[in-house]
């Protein structure tokens, strides 16, 4: 799996062929989580990724543990999973090893889309050629990219089906954002957003959404024209909200904030898988280019207001509370969730949607009570190490 960080693009213009879309089992799952390393004194970010990677290499674990852009971040990923239960089991195993390693180094691991009070200028770029290259290209933006997301890969039977899945899934981007939002605080301030993390992604070129086409051949032509400009070299240079991942045979959803617990991460993966199953088995609707007319507005609403957002139906233009649309969607995919063994997580998400609770709200409530963001981080670290 790879980084959320944007890639440098300094190569001379040359047409690059789109790599072939690999085979993967339909509805297979893979989850990546970017996590925060904090010290246990004042709970600011702590540059311990190298030490953590060294200690984690001693464990026999599924998936992978890799460095991220700055040295206070670490990324974990599951292997190829068939169910949300397997995702949870693998993430729990890795989490337990992470907690043990962190204890040895006297640091703590925390979820959440942002560190509430870290100062971007204090961050240090992880010592890796690619990260140094990115840092030179993007300047301070690379340090401001100290944000933490969850990526969910879902297997698609073929490339055309992947593009169809991608554009169908785009309608549910606000749902994903609102349910995973866990980044209300940035640089010590309440941003008034539930997910402020995605605002940092917007600063980079090549963010946003994939071009609308449902044909892999046509997408290949578009890709070839783009690479000819020299602005991008590979699919990895796009950091869209959802992007096809030909080398895995998946689409990758990248709008989730890292949740505060691995159980919520697994529940969100189960939600994606159930939606995908609904799409594949019932073909409930056909996406249209016009869907994207309300895409940015819906996305903004979800980032700003979380579960209290307004959702504009891309087909009818009807305005409705996002919570209601989420609950309706979760009811629609209920059978698929049951068949996939994801119903427990989906039920948890439904209850949260109904109650209007997400991780951003939890963080705000803790801050309201404690009046100390460092204490919020400490309690977040306790929540992350909890049973599941």
């Amino acid at each position, binding site marked *: 799996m790879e980084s959320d960080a944007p890639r440098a693009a300094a190569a001379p213009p040359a047409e690059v062929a789109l790599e072939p879309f690999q085979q993967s089992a339909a509805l297979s799952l893979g989850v990546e989580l970017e996590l925060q390393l904090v010290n246990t004194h004042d709970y600011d970010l702590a540059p311990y990724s190298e*030490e953590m990677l060294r200690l984690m290499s001693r464990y026999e674990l599924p998936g992978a543990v890799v460095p991220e852009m700055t040295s206070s971040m670490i990324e974990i990923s599951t292997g190829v999973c068939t169910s949300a239960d397997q995702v949870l089991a693998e993430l729990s195993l890795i989490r337990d090893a992470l907690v043990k390693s962190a204890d040895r180094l006297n640091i703590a691991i925390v979820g959440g889309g942002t560190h509430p009070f870290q100062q971007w200028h204090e961050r240090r770029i992880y010592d890796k050629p690619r990260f140094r290259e990115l840092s030179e290209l993007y300047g301070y933006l690379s340090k401001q990219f100290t944000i933490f997301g969850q990526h969910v890969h879902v297997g698609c039977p073929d490339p055309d089906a992947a593009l169809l899945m991608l554009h169908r899934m785009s309608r549910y981007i606000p749902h994903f954002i609102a349910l995973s939002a866990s980044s209300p605080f940035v640089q010590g301030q309440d941003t008034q957003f539930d997910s402020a993390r995605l605002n940092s992604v917007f600063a980079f070129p090549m963010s946003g959404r994939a071009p609308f086409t449902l044909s892999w051949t046509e997408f290949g032509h578009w890709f070839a024209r783009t690479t000819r400009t020299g602005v991008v070299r590979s699919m990895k240079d796009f950091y869209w909200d959802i992007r096809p991942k030909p080398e895995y045979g998946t689409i990758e959803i990248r709008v989730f904030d890292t949740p505060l617990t691995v159980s919520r991460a697994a529940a969100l993966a189960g939600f994606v898988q159930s939606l995908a199953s609904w799409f594949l088995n019932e073909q409930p609707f056909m996406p249209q280019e016009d869907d994207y007319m309300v895409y940015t507005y819906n996305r903004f609403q979800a980032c700003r207001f979380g579960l209290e957002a307004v959702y504009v139906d891309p087909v009818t233009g009807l305005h409705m509370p996002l919570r209601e649309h989420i609950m309706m969607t979760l009811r629609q995919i209920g059978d698929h969730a049951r068949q996939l063994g994801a119903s427990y997580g989906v039920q948890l998400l439904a209850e949260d949607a109904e109650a209007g609770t997400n991780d951003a709200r939890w963080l705000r409530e803790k801050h309201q009570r404690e009046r100390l963001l460092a204490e919020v981080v400490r309690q977040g670290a306790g929540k992350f190490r909890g049973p599941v």
Partner: protein
Amino acid sequence: MNEIMAIWADWLKPSAGLPTVQWSILMAVAAAAGHLLQRHTGLPKVVGYSAVGALAGLAGFTGGAWPLQGIGLFLLELGVSVVLFEAGGRIALRWFRHNPMVLLQSLLESTLTALAVYGALRWMDVSPRVAEAIGLIAVAASPAVLSRVIMDMRASGPVTERALALSTLSCLYALTLVSARAGLLHRPVTTLWETLYPVAVVLGLSFVVGAVLALSLRMALRVMSPTSENTSMMLIALIAAATALAAHFGGSAPLAALLGGMLLKQLNPRPWAWPRQLGTAASLLTMLTFVMVSVVAAKADWSHAVAGLVAAVVLARGAAKIAGVVAANWGSGTTWRQAVWTGSAMSPMSSVALLLVQQFMTSSLTLGPRIAAIALPAILLMEVLGAIICTVAIHRARESSRTDIGDAWSPAVGDMRG
């Protein structure tokens, strides 16, 4: 210089007395020197403070009578106590449960340091009691210098954190052992109990004062925010009270503050937000201790013989600290290279060591001056040189967030952490 001061004293009658004016001006010069030195050379500010203090001491500055007494001694103890309280508050005992090798590193480097310095001095024909005393003093690294360097460099990382923890623990051992040993300097010890009893008394009494301090703050923090300015003021006021009381009861003031910090960390696991709020007042107090240490230490008599002994102490101490940290590094979570930088970052000696010398001075009229004759120059040297070594070590470990200072010490690409 003394003549100028005498003329000045004749016509100037300041309200708070002439020493206050002298010290105030010295502090102002030290603050400017620290700033300018760092700005133009990248050296840590503490080098500037020490240089100004040393020059003043060499020029015969009258404000630093040795041995220290009265308000000067109290201010030094208070400065050390504030630093050690904060340093003690960084020691999470649960860390040693999860990573006992760190505790072993601490015990090993302290033991090796005491033995190496004792051995080196004995080899140079220094009497056993003087060598033993200096061996114990040498155990204490300086959390004060280290934390100032860390602050200047905005450093964080495994080397920084571990060096600070090991330095704090080394002070814990040294303060306990010296406080107990100083009282027995002229008594022949015959049994193990006679050796351990004073250690237990010093530790016990300091623990009681530290516990009262920790419990008072624990209660206050139930109703006060750690980020409040008033909490910071209360913290300094309570540490001052504990400092004044601890020695009176027969304990050690810095030890009580250190134990108080450690205890509060256990009682109150919430984040320590107040060091940032302590701000300028604590920084001024810390700067005063650096200047005072160098003023006093600069008054020591230098000779070729002393220079040789000081060099032996400094080299043996430096090698032992690095060797101790490296020897127990296996399985502790850092690389061998990081262990070397950690040991190097523990080079500084400063105010804690001076207080230890002071204890020997007040305990023995005969041995005290002989101990001070070697220890004071070593302290002055290692306040300045130690701060520079510490800065280089943190740079080489790539744990500084500042890119505008010390570029010359930064490692080349490929020579990074680990």
